[in-house]
């Protein structure tokens, strides 16, 4: 009995020593995973995921606190990429979240009173204008997060779906029909 205990504790001691050394030798300083997740997220900073921006959501995913299907602007493809990075099964978009076509905010310049509330709300500094002056959304910079819509006291901001033109036109998925051969 004593020898058994001795043997097992001996093995445990030796292994413990090796593991202890390895833990110091191979210590991981920081988790670059957050950066990798953040790189996949669309950076709209819209907060639809329930976190105050893309980075906090990425940190939550990395910690395992948040699910990967909370980002509507990222769409199915975003979820698929996250799933691939994390080695889990892709899943449909979370409950209560819907994917919308990409849009930009447009300020009706005849109505704008220059209150700067939208400028304060914009997470990516895409709205220009000064107090009491008319504001404008720079469409190239707008991420379509809709965060400026609610604060506007005169409801002069609306979301416009980006129209297809020759510069952003995409080739469609080919349609092939098997049943045509009758």
């Amino acid at each position, binding site marked *: 009995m004593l020898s058994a205990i001795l043997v097992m504790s001996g093995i445990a001691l030796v292994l413990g020593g090796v593991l202890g050394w390895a833990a110091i030798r191979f210590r991981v300083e920081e988790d670059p995973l957050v950066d990798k997740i*953040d790189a996949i*997220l*669309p*950076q*709209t*900073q819209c907060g639809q995921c329930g976190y105050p*921006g*893309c*980075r906090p959501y990425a940190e939550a995913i990395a910690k395992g606190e948040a699910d990967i299907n909370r980002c509507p602007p990222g769409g199915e*493809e975003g979820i698929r990429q996250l799933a691939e990075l994390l080695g889990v099964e892709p899943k449909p978009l979370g409950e209560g979240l819907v994917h919308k076509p990409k849009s930009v905010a447009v300020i009706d310049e*005849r*109505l*704008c*009173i*220059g*209150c700067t509330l939208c400028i304060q709300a914009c*997470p*990516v*500094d*895409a709205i220009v204008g000064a107090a*009491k002056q008319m504001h404008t959304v720079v469409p190239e*910079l707008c*991420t379509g997060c809709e965060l400026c819509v609610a604060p506007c*006291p*005169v409801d*002069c901001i609306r979301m416009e779906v980006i129209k*297809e*033109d*020759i510069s*952003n*036109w*995409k*080739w*469609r*998925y*080919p349609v*092939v*029909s*098997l049943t*045509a*051969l009758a």
Partner: protein
Amino acid sequence: MRFAPTPDEPRLTPFPGGIRLPAHKEVSTQRPIAALPLLPLYVVPLRQHIGEPARPIVQAGDRVLRGQMIGRPEGYVSVGVHAPTSGRVLAVEPRPVPHPSGLADLCVVIEADGEDRAVEPTPLDWHVMDASSLRNRLREMGLAGLGGAVFPSFIKLNPGARRSIPILILNGAECEPWITCDDLLMRQRASEILLGAQIMRHMLGAQQVLVGIEDNKPQAIASMMEAAIGSDIRVVAVPSIYPAGGGKQLTYLLTGRETPAHGLTTDVGVQVFNVGTAYALYRAVVHGEPLTSRIVTVTGHVAAPGNFEVRLGTPIADLLAAAGGELTGATGRVIGGPMMGFELKDTAAPVTKAVNCVLVKDAVHFPPPPPALPCIRCGACARACPMRLSPHELYWYARHRDFGKTQALNLFDCIECGCCSYVCPSHIPLVDYYRFAKSEIWAREREKKAADEARARHEFRLQRLEREKQEKAERLAKKAAERLESGAVSAQDPDAERKRAILAAAIEKARKAKEGVQPRNVDDLPEAVRKEIASIDARRTGGNGADPTP
């Protein structure tokens, strides 16, 4: 071959893959190049080249002359656009253009005055002009590759850091079936083409000039060889294997130099220009004419197929009419050749710098393809691929939208020549899948870039807010300290009340403005409609003031 200026035939290096195709060239080579009569209306797109579209510099109502610039190049990769005849600008608006999407794009619509007055031509003395200003003039004159890719020529004519590019290749292969515009141009205007080539050679500092022509065009070869007598330009007949006219393929064929992936032929010391571009360059430099016309083949199921010198902006419907019109039984029109061309959706679209051929299809030569069956991995596509890709694998993953895999399999080396689709026993539209995958990947890259920029701006903003907060805290602390010193403490900030009042007034003003701007286009309405609107307005504002929306 008896005109051969140099007796030794260069050794050709066959490129991988490729296919032999029925040429059908004789259909449109029976008549010499014909000029189109002046038309009443021209529609000139501002995006005729690769890169940024030109910015319109005319407005509706302006009078323009032939050769007058109507679109200024914007950004580096851009060239000018010019009026094809004299007349009045009717509009600058989106019109249908020849593009696979069938979408409209910004065009300058010109009503011809029938006088066809031109601006004063400005010939360039290329021997003495410095290279940079010569290139700049070509940029303004709208020179872009006329082989189909329409890449701005001035960029390609810049040897850049290399100082010189040793080999200049003129591409007269014209490997697509049916198209003969280069063939006819070489037959009829060989010496002008070679003059253009000499200017190119001068600009590039090239030692050697090679002209590659497929051996199914013996007349063009003979004519070019005759024109080359007395110079050291070498005219080389290459086997008629599609796609010998591809830039990388022709370079390999003539020089044995393999253009690196994602690189240009200039990386191996070769620059390739279409013969049509050389001709246009000659017109631009020697005659001082900006690019306002090109040769277009109209062939297939039309009454009088042939080649036409067409002003850019000519509606394709008018061009078809000039070729005798479509015969009955026409099943569609293709812009470009049968291998890489695309279906034209609207004949109102004009001829642009990219349009080298209008091919009218019929059921005999272009039967509807059999329906696609699953891929059986037979590998016929891989044997036909001139880039030595694995088209069946690309298809397998593109079909499943696994774009990472398609990129790993070098999707972006695909030149979309269509050899794989042509030989596929399952009749799968392979090229469509690659185009789909490519444009999805491009879209994703655009999104990624936008996301990265958004992230940077967001982080910058967070930093700024943090800094402002700190500064404010410091200010407040300072103020509080001052107040403590002075002993005067006010309970309320008089500023806040004032701000609220201003805001409320502004909101009220905006609401009024909203009501005020609502009715539009009510100026020329009949009395009945006016009344109806008035009654609706009354109902809306009077009946329920709290909710102005119906």
